[in-house]
C-alpha cells in the first residue's frame, strides 16, 4: 500500500434491484483530502452507490475499497473511518438536537462528559446553540440538515458521505452547508457529496463524476466538465414569434454562434462565452425594433451538461407529478 492510499477505489461496482440496474459498473478513484462530487439526475444511482460504500448495501458485482478496506469483507474497518449523512434526515425527531449528538458521542465511545462537551461545541459551531434543547421535530429543514451533518462528525471522520446535502434548502441554508463542507475539507476530511446541481459541484468539488443510468459518463475537474459544454447560455423570449427568424439572424451575427430554436415558438437560446457579448447582442435586437419579454444569462445547467455529454436530456423526476 502506498503511503497516501486512496480514500475510495471501486471497479465494476454493480447493484441490481430486480430488473433495475441501479448501479451498472461504476469505477471511481477518489484521492484523500479533497471534495469529490457525484453529479447525476434523479434515479442515476447516486444513493445506491453511497449505500454500498458505507456498507449498507452489498454489491452484486465488482468491488469497492475505502482506505484500502474492502466494503464487504472488512465492513467494520470501513465503518470505523467513514460517516454518512443520508439524503433524508436520519436523526431522532423525538429527541432534542443536543440529545441526538450526545447519543452518538456515547455510541462512538466517548464518556458522558466528553460527549456533552462535544455536543455543545458542535451545536455552537453549526449555529444551533439556541435550538439545542428543542425536539428536532420543531426544526426547519436547514436546521435539520445541519444537525444531521453535525451528527456525522461527532467524531471527525476521515471520509464523510453527504447525499444531496442541499436539495430542498433555500440559498442561505445552502451556503451554510457549503461553508461546513469547506471547513471539513480544510480540517483534513475527505468529502464525497452527491448533487443534482452543476453549480454546487462547481463551487465545492475538486473533481466530479457525472453519472447517469448507473454509469459514470464523465469524470474530471469542474472546469474540464464545463469546457465540454461551453461556459454559459443565453435564453430569450420575443414578444412577437413572427420576428424569430429576423432575431436569429441578428443574434447569430452579434454572438458568432448558432442559435437554438426552443420548442416555444417565441424562444431562442445560444451558448455564449462572455456576458458583454450577450449584452451587445441584446442591444442590437433593440435597435432593430425587436421586443424581448424575457432574457437570462446563466451557467450551463446539469441538463445542458447532460445534453452535451450524452445527447439526451436528464429525465424528469416522476415524483414531481404527485
Amino acid at each position, binding site marked *: 500500500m502506498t503511503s497516501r492510499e486512496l480514500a475510495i477505489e471501486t471497479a465494476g461496482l454493480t447493484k441490481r434491484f430486480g430488473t433495475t440496474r441501479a448501479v451498472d459498473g461504476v469505477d471511481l478513484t477518489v484521492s484523500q483530502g479533497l471534495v469529490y462530487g457525484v453529479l447525476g439526475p434523479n434515479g442515476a444511482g447516486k444513493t445506491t452507490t453511497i449505500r454500498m460504500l458505507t456498507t449498507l448495501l452489498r454489491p452484486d458485482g465488482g468491488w469497492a475499497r475505502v482506505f484500502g478496506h474492502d466494503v464487504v469483507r472488512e465492513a467494520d474497518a470501513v465503518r470505523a473511518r467513514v460517516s454518512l449523512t443520508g439524503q433524508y434526515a436520519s436523526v431522532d425527531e423525538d429527541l432534542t438536537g443536543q440529545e441526538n449528538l450526545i447519543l452518538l458521542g*456515547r455510541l462512538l*465511545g466517548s464518556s458522558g462528559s466528553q460527549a456533552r462537551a462535544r455536543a455543545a461545541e458542535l451545536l455552537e*459551531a453549526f449555529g444551533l446553540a439556541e435550538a439545542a434543547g428543542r*425536539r428536532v421535530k420543531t426544526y426547519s429543514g436547514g436546521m435539520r440538515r445541519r444537525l444531521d451533518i453535525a451528527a456525522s462528525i461527532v*467524531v471527525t471522520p476521515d471520509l464523510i458521505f453527504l447525499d444531496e446535502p442541499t436539495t430542498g434548502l433555500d440559498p442561505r*441554508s445552502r451556503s*451554510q452547508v457549503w461553508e461546513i463542507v469547506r471547513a471539513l475539507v480544510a480540517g483534513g476530511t475527505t468529502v464525497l457529496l452527491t448533487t443534482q446541481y452543476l453549480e454546487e459541484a462547481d463551487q465545492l468539488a475538486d473533481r466530479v463524476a457525472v453519472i447517469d443510468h448507473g454509469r459514470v459518463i464523465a469524470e474530471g475537474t469542474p472546469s474540464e466538465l464545463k469546457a465540454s459544454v461551453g461556459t454559459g447560455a443565453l435564453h430569450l423570449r420575443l414578444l412577437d414569434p413572427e420576428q424569430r427568424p429576423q432575431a436569429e439572424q441578428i443574434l447569430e451575427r452579434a454572438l458568432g454562434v448558432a442559435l437554438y430554436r426552443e420548442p416555444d415558438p417565441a424562444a431562442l437560446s445560444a451558448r455564449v462565452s462572455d456576458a458583454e457579448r450577450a449584452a451587445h447582442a441584446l442591444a442590437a435586437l433593440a435597435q432593430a425594433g425587436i421586443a424581448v419579454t424575457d432574457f437570462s444569462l446563466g451557467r450551463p445547467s446539469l441538463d445542458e451538461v447532460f445534453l452535451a455529454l450524452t445527447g439526451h436530456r436528464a429525465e424528469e423526476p416522476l415524483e414531481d407529478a404527485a
Partner: protein
Amino acid sequence: MTSTPILTPARPIVDDTLRAALSPRVRPPRANALTASLTFFWRAMLKIKHVPEQLIDVTIFPVMFTLMFTYLFGGALAGSTDAYLQYLLPGVLVQTVVLITMYTGLGLNIDIEKGFFDRIRTLPIWRPAAIVGMLLGDAARYTMASTIVIVLGLVLGFRPAGGVIGVLLGVALLLVFSFSLSWAWTSLGLVVRTQNAVMMTSMLFLFPLTFASNIFVDPATMPGWLQAFVNANPISHLATAVRGLMAGTAQPEIALVLIASAVLVAVFGPLTMRLYGRER
C-alpha cells in the same frame, strides 16, 4: 437552466468555531457492548420523557381492562367480584403486559422508516445493542404497567397469599417471558413494511392467544376443542404460573414458561439480528 443566484453571504456560523470543531481529533476507544446497549436504553427513556402520550398503552389500558373485566364478569363468573378479582388480577396483568409487547416491533419499524437505523448501522458498534437497548426500554414500560395493575388490584381488594415476594416473583417471570416474546416482534418489525401491517399482524397472534386462554375463566367450562387449545396455549401456562407465584405456590408451569422464553430468544434473537443486518 440555473441562473447564477445572488447569495447574500450568510454567516451565522462562526468560521473559527467551525474550523476548531472540525479539526481532526482522536477517536475515542470503541464503546463496549454494555455501554452501547445502555445508551440505547437511555434513548428509550428520553422518548418517554418527551412523548409521555405514548404511555397510554401502559397506564390507561391496564386500568381500563382491570376495572372492566372485574365488574363486567366478576359477579357472573365467580359469584362475587371480590372472589373473581383474586383469580382475574394476575391474568389481567399477564394480558396487559403481553399485549403491549407488540409496540416493540412498531418502534423498530418507525426507526427504519425514518432512516435513523441507517445511521446506527454505519456505526462501529456491537450490532445487537440497538435492539437490546430498545427491549430494555420496553421492559421498563412493562414494569410500569405491572405496577399500575397491581396497585389498582390492591385498592380493589386483591389480597395475594404469596405476599410481596410472591408478587415480585410473578412479575419477574412475566417480564422474562415478555422480553423473550419481544424478539418475535422485533423480527416482525424488520420484515413487514408498514406500521399498520406490524400492528395488524401482531394483533392477529396476540388476541387469540390472550383471550383463548385461562386468563378470564377456568377452561373447565369450555367445549372440548377450545379446552385443548387453551391448555396448550403458552399464555395459559404463563397465567397459571404467575397466579401460582402470587398465591405463594410454585406451579410446574414455571418451567414451561422458562422453556418457552428460551425457545423464543433462541429462535427470534438470531433471526432478528439476521434481518437487522440485511440490506434494504
